[in-house]
């Protein structure tokens, strides 16, 4: 339609004018000096939203190929169970620290591999009898609960230092000290790493 073309041209010109105006006093993206910007609750929420979006994008195809092996030991369902187990663990850690409580367990990382393989193996065994739809639901439910928590918590709770069960040195007595915000960011990196691999795996299968 000719009138729509004219209108679109006008809108595009107005949008370009708006961008020009906003470019003139574009703020520095962060202060040049000083400590790094804290990740705001909204930014934490948004990154968890991206995780949920990535999860949603693989769910259907993953359900079709859940029995396929992604490593010599784990099927795709096991890997999804791994994500769900960690979703519960991360949410539990955040809720525990936010409530002012501590932990009576540690999750030591094996020093020669990525990730805490003993904890992962136990969690995988627990998830094996669980039906796939329940695993998918668990991941989404726990991630959404974490989203609610980051929006609810006051800044001191979100950014204050606390001790978590993760023991990346392999020594269970040397537990990770950090903030809830760091744990949430860690979950996002962890989940997006696995979801990216799942997406690539599924693309190869369905090519």
């Amino acid at each position, binding site marked *: 339609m000719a009138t*729509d073309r004219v209108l679109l041209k006008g809108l595009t010109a107005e*949008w370009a004018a708006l961008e020009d105006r906003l470019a003139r006093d574009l703020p520095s993206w962060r202060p040049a000096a000083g400590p790094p910007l804290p990740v705001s609750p909204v930014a934490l929420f948004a990154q968890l939203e991206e995780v949920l979006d990535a999860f949603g994008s693989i769910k259907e195809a993953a359900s079709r190929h859940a029995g396929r092996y992604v490593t010599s030991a784990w099927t795709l369902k096991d890997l999804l169970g791994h994500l769900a187990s960690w979703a519960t663990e991360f949410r539990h850690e955040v809720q525990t620290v936010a409530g002012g409580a501590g932990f009576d367990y540690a999750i030591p990382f094996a020093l020669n591999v990525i990730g805490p393989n003993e904890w992962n193996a136990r969690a995988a065994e627990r998830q094996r009898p669980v039906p796939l739809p329940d695993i998918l639901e668990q991941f989404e439910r726990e991630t959404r609960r974490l989203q609610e928590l980051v*929006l609810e918590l006051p800044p001191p709770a979100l950014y204050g230092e606390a001790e978590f069960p993760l023991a990346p040195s392999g020594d269970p007595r040397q537990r990770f000290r950090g903030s809830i915000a760091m744990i949430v960011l860690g979950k996002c990196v962890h989940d997006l790493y696995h979801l990216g691999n799942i997406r690539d795996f599924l693309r190869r299968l369905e090519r």
Partner: protein
Amino acid sequence: MAPAGDASPERSILRARARGEVSADSSFEELYQLYGPTVRGWLRVRVPGPAADDLMQDVWLIFHGRWRRWEFRPEMEAEAARPVLSFLFRTCHFVLRGHRRRSGREESVEGVEAVDEGGAERLMREVEGGRALGLARRLCPEEELDVLLPKLAGVPAREIARTLAISEPVVDHRFRNALARIRKSLGRAPKGGKRGH
């Protein structure tokens, strides 16, 4: 600066970074200069008051983290692909969702926060050569603005559809609806108004 060539500015920056010709920091700065005004525009049109610039920091902080581990995929080389712009659009969408959830929560606890509608309106008046964008902002429902604004900035329809979890025909439908709404309202504008020619 990114090397000159026939590629879009985004593609030139991506290629230069993928080949290791520019650092992560300097290419990030180039992308910020390129798309900072776009992201700011999206947020200013959607969020009244100073909150828009805070949300802009959130979007770029998230992108900064992602840019350091950016995956350069072959499909991103497609002519119409704008992977960075698409990522920024998606992130804006998620950030806005979080902002609204949080604002709703604060409203219910602490009462309605005062909103600087006047400042945003003034900005729109300042930058408008015409009236269409202002009308779009006032008349179009959220779902149509969600489509119209990224379309104006050049986000591929496929990426808009993916972010909003709708199909491409629905993107097209909402876009046409937005245009029709603005056209109808412009048709009703009194003669001798702001744009009487």
